[in-house]
């Protein structure tokens, strides 16, 4: 071609027809090369693209993007009822009306969080008035007609006359075991504003306290807002398995009997039935023999007892854990409660705190894992020649400890109220209704936050790694999660806590299912060097000639144009 590409050589003796033939031949060659190139581009490329494509179903990327910077508004509906005489007459005439109080919670991330207390003020009806004729506050509370709105998350606050004898003199307000509170009224000017502040304080401590938000949001809060003790409650889950284990390391000396059936039925079951909104609970118990703690206790000669120091407690759990057995039949997190009866050679055994003082309960708990209690055998039992000594565990103190540990593990710490608040005793089951509400608030916010993180990181991951296959079922789970989370946000701002919680749980389930779907991993690890090992031998011999002839055609065209210009 090169040779034929040098036309009009001086002195060339080419006859005209031969020249013409060569020219047409050249044009034909050019056409053929172009044809190859177009075929490769039009047919080959799409074919290659289509056959090597990874299937990626469409995902709602923009919606997920919006989730990251969404506004989460937590609405707490509070109905405030004024009893006759609790307000100046002037203010009474303004009722009923609704006040909205909104508070921003600063967060580290783009998400915005607002707590909105919606206080609906009204005067008391005749039924309610009657209840406040009682002598004590508990009776008054019991006599109150059932409020119309006694749903999860709602609050009822009654304002009683300033001079009322229902409350002790030094107390400003009373918080009952249900979703009810009493606040002392006032007769000062601008009474409604003053009362508003008081009511808000009560409402806040019954629902969205800083502790609740800290438990729910964890790392998202600015550092100074995170509560000082790093008590981390169990993560939100659909269910929990609770295992009670009795450790008897010395069955030769102790024959330990515990009435766990009765204890579970009388103490744990009622407690957990109140928490059933949060998840399913299953319980079992076992007795483990020859299960030792990982630490040898230190002998304390002064009290002739053995002690476990606080710093050695972290080493106690691991060796025991191996014996506890794995959860075979469900994927829910397990909470362990161990009752340890120390061997005879090491009893009595006491746990020391950091300052060296004995822990009164002789128990400790490990966040997100469970609790351990040491149960010492009465030393007088050893005054016998017959071994093993029969030990009947007194389940009441044991269960008291375990239940209080359970509260801590679930993130329901004992409420801390300002001085002038009177706290009603919890009901027999051990949990006040508003404490459960606080837990549900925390869990809902936590769920929403978790889903947002899961979905955004999933979207980011899928965006970054093009190799990941997105199957239809994964996509549908993502859609479901996005829908559910949006529903949950809507319900939260409407004040329907129960629905919001249900939606948030749905969203968590779907988003986790999508995130952990094994199909995502199928092609993830297909290495690029293998791909090139296959492509290069195939494409190099094909592509190089096409490229070369293309370049040549372009060069020739340019040359031809130049020649024409020259001729001109």
């Amino acid at each position, binding site marked *: 071609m090169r040779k034929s590409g040098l036309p009009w050589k001086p002195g060339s003796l080419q006859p005209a027809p031969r020249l013409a033939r060569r020219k047409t031949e050249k044009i034909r060659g050019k056409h053929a090369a172009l044809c190859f190139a177009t075929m490769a581009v039009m047919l080959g490329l799409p074919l290659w693209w289509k056959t090597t494509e990874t299937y990626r179903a469409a995902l709602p990327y923009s919606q997920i993007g919006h989730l990251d910077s969404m506004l989460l508004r937590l609405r707490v509906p509070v109905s405030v009822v004024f009893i006759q005489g609790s307000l100046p007459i002037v203010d009474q005439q303004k009722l009923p009306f609704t006040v909205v109080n909104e508070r921003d919670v600063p967060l580290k991330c783009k998400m915005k969080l607002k707590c909105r207390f919606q206080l609906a003020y009204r005067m008391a009806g005749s039924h309610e008035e009657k209840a406040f004729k009682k002598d004590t506050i508990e009776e008054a509370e019991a006599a109150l007609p059932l409020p119309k709105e006694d749903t999860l998350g709602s609050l009822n606050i009654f304002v009683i006359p300033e001079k009322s004898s229902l409350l002790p003199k030094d107390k400003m307000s009373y918080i009952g075991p249900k979703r009810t509170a009493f606040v002392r009224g006032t007769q000062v000017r601008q009474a409604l504003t003053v009362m508003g502040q008081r009511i808000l304080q009560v409402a806040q401590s019954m629902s969205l306290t800083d502790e609740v938000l800290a438990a729910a949001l964890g790392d998202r809060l600015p550092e100074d807002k995170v509560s000082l003790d790093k008590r981390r409650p169990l993560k939100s889950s659909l269910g929990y398995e609770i295992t009670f284990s009795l450790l008897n390391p010395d069955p030769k000396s102790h024959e330990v009997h515990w009435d766990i059936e009765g204890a579970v039925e009388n103490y744990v079951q009622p407690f957990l039935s109140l928490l059933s909104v949060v998840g399913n609970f299953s319980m079992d118990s076992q007795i483990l*023999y020859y299960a030792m703690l990982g630490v040898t206790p230190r002998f304390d000669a002064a009290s002739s007892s053995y002690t476990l120091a606080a710093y050695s407690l972290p080493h106690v759990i691991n060796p025991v854990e191996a*014996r506890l057995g794995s959860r075979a039949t469900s994927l829910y997190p397990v909470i362990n409660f161990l009752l340890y009866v120390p061997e005879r050679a090491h009893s009595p055994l006491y746990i020391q705190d950091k300052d060296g003082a004995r822990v009164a309960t002789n128990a400790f708990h490990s966040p997100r894992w469970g609790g351990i209690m040491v149960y010492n055998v009465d030393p007088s039992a050893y005054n016998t020649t017959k071994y093993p000594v029969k030990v009947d565990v007194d389940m009441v103190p044991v269960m008291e400890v375990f239940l209080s540990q359970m509260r801590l593990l679930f993130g329901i710490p004992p409420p801390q109220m300002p001085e002038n608040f009177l706290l009603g005793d919890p009901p027999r089951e051990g949990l006040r209704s508003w404490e459960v509400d606080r837990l549900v608030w925390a869990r809902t916010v936590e769920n929403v936050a978790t889903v947002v993180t899961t979905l955004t990181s999933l979207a980011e991951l899928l965006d970054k790694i093009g190799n990941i296959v997105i199957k239809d079922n994964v996509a549908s789970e993502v859609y479901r999660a996005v829908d559910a989370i949006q529903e949950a946000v809507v319900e939260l701002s409407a004040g329907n806590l129960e629905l919001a919680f249900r939606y948030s749980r749905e969203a968590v389930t779907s988003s986790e299912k999508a995130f952990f779907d094994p199909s995502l991993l199928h092609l993830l690890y297909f290495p690029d060097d293998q791909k090139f090992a296959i492509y290069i*031998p195939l494409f190099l011999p094909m592509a190089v000639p096409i490229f070369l002839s293309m370049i040549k055609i372009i060069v020739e065209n340019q040359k031809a144009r130049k020649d024409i210009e020259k001729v001109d």
Partner: protein
Amino acid sequence: MAAPLVLHLLLALLLGSGGRSGAEPERDSLREELVLTPLPSGDVSATFQFRTRWDSELQLEGVSHYRLFPKVLGQLISKYSVQELHLSLTQGFWRTRFWGQPFLQAPAGAELWVWFQDSVVDVDKSWKELSNILSGIFCASLNFIDSTNTVTPTASFKPLGLANGTNHHFLRYAVLPREVVCTENLTPWKKLLPCSSKAGLSVLLKAERLFHTSYHSQAVHIRPVCRDAHCVSVSWELRQTLTVVFDAFTTGQGKKDWSLFRMFSRTITEACPLASQSHIYVDISRNSQENETLEVSPPPTSTYQAVVLGDRRTYAVYDLLNPATFSGSRSLNLQLRWKQFQDIGSQLVPFLHAQRYVSGYGLQKGELSTVLHNTHPYRAFPVLLLETVPWYLRLYVHTLAITTKGKENKPSYIHYQPAQDRLRPHLLEMLIQLPANSVTKVSIQFERALLKWTEYTPDPNHGFYVSPSVLSALVPNLVGAKPANWEESPLFSTMFPVSDSSSYFVRLYTEPLLVNLPTPDFSMPYNVICLTCTVVAVCYGSFYNLLTRTFHLEEPKRSRLVRIAVKNK
């Protein structure tokens, strides 16, 4: 003979009731037992059995409280509605011909068979999940159990415990002959024992010694049993068994004598305080009355005589719960000394034993043969033979031949389920009558299938395992046996339910087979890619050149002339 036995039982009962001081009796109990049998070949077999019995309805949902019964297994039973579960993990092969009939044989590798309750809707799904969970509990590769190695035998595996119906649709059976058993399987097994490995017989379970043996088999059997003689209510029984065969020659420096310490490098110091019965039995049957051939020390407190596996056996019994056992020294180190050792030749070959082998040459066809021996001098008995063959060996059923003494032997029952590629294996079950003193050969030809590239195991040239055949038979007794009280007789004799006194049930496994399949060169796909690419490149290149280049004639003469002209100038 019966007097000491009764006395012994009485003693055991008294001790048992004395252990629990009044109050309500516990609803679960533990019995542990070790049987030491000097084998005809001179080796020693040790069989541990730990039985936890729980008088409770495990199937009921809700809160469950466990004491001796392990929680993990209890949860498993109630969640998957298991009727019976038998899992064994075995390293080595029990050589029936030389070692005699075992109490409980297991095939090499892992074996799992489960009867589900008839309330289970999707048996296959439960089976899959159950095997996955068991795989986690015992650190074994039971998760490789899938439809390609699972079968549903129709006759061979009947429930061993109480069962209402025996609809075999609720049974699943799988063997993984490739499974290697090691310490990591023993540790979780030991963890299930109430006394762990801290007291009682389980102290002897030292992994280092247990795996330095010719045969190691550990098993878990769960089944419902009658709570009492009236059998109104059900109790659950968990049996953990472990059988090891020590090569007496290598452990004993050339002598056949043995002791607990020499075998396990441990001695027993105390009984498990949780056990209601803790016995060691030593087989001293060969100590005939005329001449004393062996001596055990310390001398046993009692002896036990029974018809075990068709033969009359005498056992020296050591009761660990009896303080007198440890009175001499602080620890019990059982020893056996031979005064005169009998050779293998003089020993009786068991009535039933079998071998299996694969024959043929080349990589296309082959033949599976199972040889069944009945050495009983005058009694014929039927044998149920179960063969499971993986789908990649395609059986030719028309070549199935069963010959005894040169004549064809027609099976009275035959069940054949053909394989489906990549879905299920072949299942062949036959009831064959074995005439007295005969050798029966069952053979079937097969063709090897080609596997897909990804279906080969990591080391395909090692070969592919074919699970052993299973023989179930009622073998006639040599001597008549009296039906014994089931709950009071030693554990080793109560694994299989006894129906009549003239015969005993035996389940034997043959050797697993290793078959070579045609194996490709695994770098082949890359070679193929490179080759095709080269061919494409060459063809395409020339084709492209041909089409796009223009060709014309050169005039070499002229150019040369020009050159010459230039030169001459």
